[in-house]
């Protein structure tokens, strides 16, 4: 997963600021790509390349905050670090609520920016890891038989095999077989493991039909 090097994307209409950031970020061994406008960035961005976005709030034609919303709407989950020469509190609040990693006021301390980039890359990396885990889980879930999918919510809700059997109107032995198949297919080592997986998949514990 982490074999592709992350890229720090910088969008700022001020070339001088762009080049300064490039120099600083490259000096810590990261790759940098510079853009004067959001459009240029959108053309260069690829979903499979990890990285983060350093975005100026004031941009010609549209504001950085608007662009943040557009990215979210387009399901482009890149972590954003806002930089602005003149920011105010409402602007900061809005940016942070919308999921910005950091909001830096120009001129900023170099370490603050580098730290924010580091954090953003970690977040991106974590998101990407999480995304790939989810994808695996979904694949595993897909391999379950309808009967196994049926008993999964009952298992994670903590019911005994006998109780599950009663709920489904089958025998306890049959439930026991399905349950071990389920655990094996999902790669769950314990019930707790399975519960966590079910949570990730958004499968809620079923309300048992207790007789």
């Amino acid at each position: 997963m982490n074999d592709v090097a992350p890229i720090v994307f910088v969008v700022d209409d001020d070339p001088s600021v762009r080049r300064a950031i490039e120099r600083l970020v490259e000096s810590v061994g990261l790759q940098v790509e510079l853009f004067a406008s959001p459009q240029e960035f959108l053309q260069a961005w690829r979903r499979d390349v990890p990285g983060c976005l350093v975005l100026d709030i004031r941009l010609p034609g549209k504001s950085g905050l608007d662009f943040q919303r557009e990215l979210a709407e387009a399901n482009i989950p890149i972590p954003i670090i806002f930089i602005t020469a003149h920011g105010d509190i409402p602007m900061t609040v809005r940016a942070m609520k919308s999921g910005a990693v950091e909001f830096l006021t120009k001129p900023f301390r170099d370490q603050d920016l580098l730290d924010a980039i580091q954090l953003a890359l970690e977040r991106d990396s974590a998101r990407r890891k999480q995304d790939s885990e989810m994808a695996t889980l979904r694949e595993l879930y897909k391999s379950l038989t309808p009967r196994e999918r049926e008993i999964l919510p009952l298992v994670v809700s903590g019911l005994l095999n006998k109780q599950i059997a009663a709920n489904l109107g089958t025998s306890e032995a049959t439930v026991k077989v399905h349950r071990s198949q389920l655990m094996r297919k999902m790669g769950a080592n314990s019930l707790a493991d399975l519960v966590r997986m079910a949570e990730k998949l958004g499968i809620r514990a079923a309300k048992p039909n207790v007789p």
Partner: protein
Amino acid sequence: MLISAYAAMSGSYDYSEVARSVLIAILASYAALDLAGRVTAARGWVRSAWLTGGAAAMGLGIWAMHFKGMLAFQLPIPVSYHWPTVLLSLLVAILASAFALYVVSRQKLGLVRALVGSGIMASGISGMHYIGIAAMRLAATFRFHPLLVTLSVAFAIAFSFAALMLAFDLREETKQTASRKIASAIVMGAAVSAMHYTGMASVSFMPSAILPNLTHAASISSLGNNGIAIVTVIVLAAAVLTSSLDRQAEAELRHLNEELEHRVVERTTELVVVNDELKKLKDELRLVIDTIPALVWSKLPDGSADFFNQRFREYTGLPLEEGLGGGWMSVIHPEDRSKFEDEWHAALVAGETFDVEARLRRADGQYRQFLLRGVPLRDELGKIIKWYGTSTDIEERKRTEEALQEAHARLAHITRVMAMGELAAAIAHEVNQPLAAIVTNANFCLRQLANATPNLEKLREAIAEIANDGTRASAVISRIRALLQRGAPERVELDINQLIQEVNVLLRDELTRNRVSLRADLAADLPRVSGDPIQLQQVLINLVMNGIDAMRTLTDRKRELLIKSAKNHSEVFIQVQDSGEGLDPQQAERIFEPFFTTKPEGIGMGLSISRSIVESHGGRLWAESGSRGARFQFTLPTK
């Protein structure tokens, strides 16, 4: 007929001859009256000629009458006449006539003079009469009857007196005198005849045996007799005719003279009236010129003064003779003198109206600002014959103007400061951009230097950029500082396009923040204009900010601001157009009024001040509602 030696010879009269003699007497009298008028009217040698000719004609007439009377008397014996004595009698008659004419032609005729005159004249006539009798040569002796002689002399005196008075009275010739003259002539003729025949009656002829001495004697034939009468009548008629012609000519001349005199009087009266009017007019004009509230002067084509009004003399305290010529230049303030002289000489050379301001010294030594203006007066050939001018005191106006300008400058400054306040965020952004780059680059450098093997190439690049960005930040700050300073307006040559670019830099963030895209359409070969860069930037900032405000609520279309510059004849044309709602036509003019605003937070001074700034640069600022949005345009004159 029987001739007795003792008895007087009885004579008889040929009455037709008597009648003729009376007629001649009347004619002679008429001629005398007529000629008296001529003699009186004439002057100099003409008078002498008239006197001489008149006397001859009149004397001849009287004499002819007498002689006729003598011939009418017939004696039984032949009668001859001693002709030298006859000539003497004629001479006496002429002299008496000359004297009479002379007397009546004098200015005055008193009673004494008339009496003395008539005495002399009577003695002449009587002398002539008796000399005439003495010229008779006949075989008889004369015997005079004393009473009748006396009576005849008395008649002569009375006749002379009457003749003088009548002639004097009638000498002034008018129309009515003609009939009176004829009547008087008849009376006088009768009187002369009466005197003659009385005189004749006083003589008795006694027959004598002694034969008369007939030496130089001649008898008068009837032919000769008639000849005398005819010649006399011709002479008298000629005299009267000449007199009449002369009188007519004189009358005409007099008439002409009178008419001329009348005209002269009329014209003189007219001239007097016109002169009075002219004088009145002149006095009035002088009064106007002296009292109008300006110093009035006139100068000759060479520039030397030849007139100053009273106010000029009073204001400067300069006596007229000192101010004339070039003396008036001394009242111009020394600092203004060379400028004034330049303008004045330029006007003199070009022959054009001039208009210049200068300080003039008052009588108390204080200087006041004046507006001096002059216009040339040309003759029909276009040659300048005079310069007229006024100098008007504009001290108060000048001060008010200065105070107004000062107030304007303050207000302009205040609005600039306010605009800067509104732009604080944008300005902070503009300064923070280069600062951000500087800080970042500097930190990069520090990091490099902390490395064991710093990348020198990268270091050099970063440091160069630090220097550039430092300069950039400083430029922004100086622009802002200039806008916030309150200096005296200045005039420098400037490039409007460059000014527009600088304003764009200042407002870039403000435009970005309001999501306004700015398009600049600037003419490449724009001539430079003379102006105050700060003031003109203020105008541009004001127009751009207004455009931004107008589009703030716009959601259905692009917020676009177009700044255009163009060359237009001798002007530079600048236009700022927004894509907002546009202007209400009724508001298009009102928006330039002070304190008129359509913005909730505006104070309504921006456009008012912008307009006065543009106008103080000799340009115009106006607003139009375009097809889309409002269009603000202004012009500036090029150099």
